[in-house]
């Protein structure tokens, strides 16, 4: 283990440790969610029914698919298939953009109905409802920011693959970026049922 040799194991270990911090960051939101769900089950139920299941479910499928592409891109680069890697990364970013677009449609529909942070409708409504939508915007907003960061990272990795800085022999950066992307997917796997489906 000379200091000059690249330590793939160490790089991945560092990335996982970073992912833990992301898990706990979203964990903070889930702590609040669980506490307020036990306090306002009815209002959360009513709030959840106002969310659009079609948008939510579509986005789940889109994000799962993007995760598949990301995982496949790791396989591709390890097999030395540069074009396939780039195509798959493109697919991942494409899915991310679709996800963001659907999110935009969903949010604008909500805004249109007067449901946005601090809106008069929420202030006038029952307290639990305001909390539900507050958490909804917090969780999906924070998640959305991570989708954007992840897409930028993906694009940056794609450039490095194109320039063959990353290749079959050295691809831990790509692996780490896809790990980040899967984490974004993981968070959504929990957001979807907790906000769109429950109650």
């Amino acid at each position: 283990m000379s200091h000059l040799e690249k330590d793939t194991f160490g790089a991945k270990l560092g990335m996982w440790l970073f992912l833990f911090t992301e898990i706990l960051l979203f964990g903070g939101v889930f702590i609040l969610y669980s506490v307020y769900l036990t306090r306002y089950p009815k209002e959360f139920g009513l709030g959840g029914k106002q969310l659009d299941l079609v948008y939510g479910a579509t986005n789940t499928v889109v994000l799962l698919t993007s995760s598949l592409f990301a995982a496949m891109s790791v396989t591709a680069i390890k097999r030395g298939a540069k074009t396939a890697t780039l195509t798959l990364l493109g697919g991942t970013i494409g899915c991310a953009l679709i996800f963001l677009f659907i999110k935009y449609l969903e949010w604008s529909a909500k805004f249109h109905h007067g449901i946005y942070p601090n809106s008069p409708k929420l202030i006038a409504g029952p307290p639990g409802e305001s909390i539900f939508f507050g958490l909804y915007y917090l969780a999906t907003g924070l998640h959305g920011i991570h989708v954007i960061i992840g897409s930028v990272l993906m694009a940056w990795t794609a450039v490095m693959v194109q320039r063959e800085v990353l290749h079959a022999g050295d691809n831990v950066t790509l692996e780490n970026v896809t790990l980040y992307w899967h984490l974004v997917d993981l968070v959504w796997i929990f957001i979807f049922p907790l906000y769109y489906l429950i109650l």
Partner: protein
Amino acid sequence: MSQETATAEGGFWSDSGKTGIGSWIFSTDHKRIGLMYLYCVLSFFMVGVLLGVLIRLELIAPGPTIVTAQTYNALFTVHGVVMIFLFIIPGIPASFGNLVLPIQLGARDVAFPRVNLFSWWLYVIGAVIVLVSLFTGGGAPDTGWTFYVPFSARTTTNVSLAVFGVFILGFSSILTGINFVTTIHRMRAPGMNWTRIPLFTWSLYATAWVQILATPIIAITLLLVVTERVLGLGLFDPSRGGDPIMFQHMFWIYSHPAVYIMILPGMGVISDIIPVFSRKPIFGYKMIAFSSLAIAAAGSAVWGHHMYTSGMSDLGVMVFSFLTFLVAIPSAIKVFNWVSTMYKGSISLEAPMLFALSFILLFSIGGLSGLILGAASTDIHVHDTHFVVGHFHYVMFGGTGFAFFAAAHYWLPKYFGRRYEEKPAIIGWVLMFIGFNVLYFTMQVLGMEGMPRRYYDYLPEFARLNFVATVGSWIMVAGILIVLWNLWRGLLKGEPFTGNPWGGASLEWSIPTPPPTENFEEDPVVTHGPYDFKGAGVP
């Protein structure tokens, strides 16, 4: 040597041929980054000390003395924010950790040198943002360093920018933690198995885990304060169904473990210094290493003991009170082991050892007064009084602060190649120790008598003790100034410091002074433990 300018020579100071400022602020060398952290945290320490002196000066007599009530609120807020987020949390891990940890493991650098540099930059950016927040917007925050809602969500002072700065500082702290955990797992020299890791590095390992797992919670909590202020999400607003106590939970889920981010590295410093100056192997190596992990784990489950009077459920109070007592066990294990190490040792009372010894005493007083606060029944009486202020200064300053100075006297000569003078160091230490106790023990008495914390004015019967405490602060500050001046002068112009004068057996004492950029000329092979003085061949 002839130069009067502030430069040390040799080793990593010059062997790369680069000495300009760019070779420092863009350096990925852990030693340079460690020193840059050191200069920063020391500067902020002095800012914090100044603010503390002003607070004490205001309290020297009842009624308005030197500042207005609003300024007073800003003073104790900024004193807390600066001391906690800019000094103690990065204080030992980021400065001495960076300086010492890779060498103690037999590595040439940390696992991610560029991330390490990035982390320092984040620290600087976060610090600048915090400083800017004091003079812009509605002025310096006046919420106390705890940023409790609902006040922090409503005050017109510049809370948003300040908490954003703290958010960035948290990111910096996380990156340092990730770096250290990876370094300890991956960069150990051949033969450096887990039971040969020096206890300072062990303590940083436990600390790093807390940094990784607890800091994100404060990040999201502070983000929520900002969203509360900017977007009005209402998550902590009772009129909208929110629960302000949830803020306290989330704040302390980080901020209590953060106490262990502050104290664990200090304990590690002491564990390294005591055996060297007792000329005896450490007593109970494995228990000390294990107790660091135990403190980190148990310390992450006791945050509720800050909230006994908040309106938390009675069951919650009892559970958290019980768990709090558990933390005393690993802490006591450490104290017993340090004392046992000294038993029948050949103790030499040099400056690092004096600071280490006072750490044990002051930390024990702080720890025991902590039990009074941890027990719900007694806490109710002294909650939010000067007793609490005295308690945490005993632990944070008497503990971590004194450990910081112990580390400075122990390790810095190694990196500068010059040493301070012993006599002023001891005089400074005596003044610090006396002033410290006059100041903070008096505070604890005041708290017992009922003087609340964070109050601008107080009843006449508290006047005498407040006067005594303020005088104590002057004595302590005199000591601090002597110690720092002596270090400053000695490290730059003092007698040469070569070889291994303390007789340490861990790896940092086996390399040239100052260490070369690459630390080791060839990869070391470790054949003995960190406190095996015979194995290391030191007398």
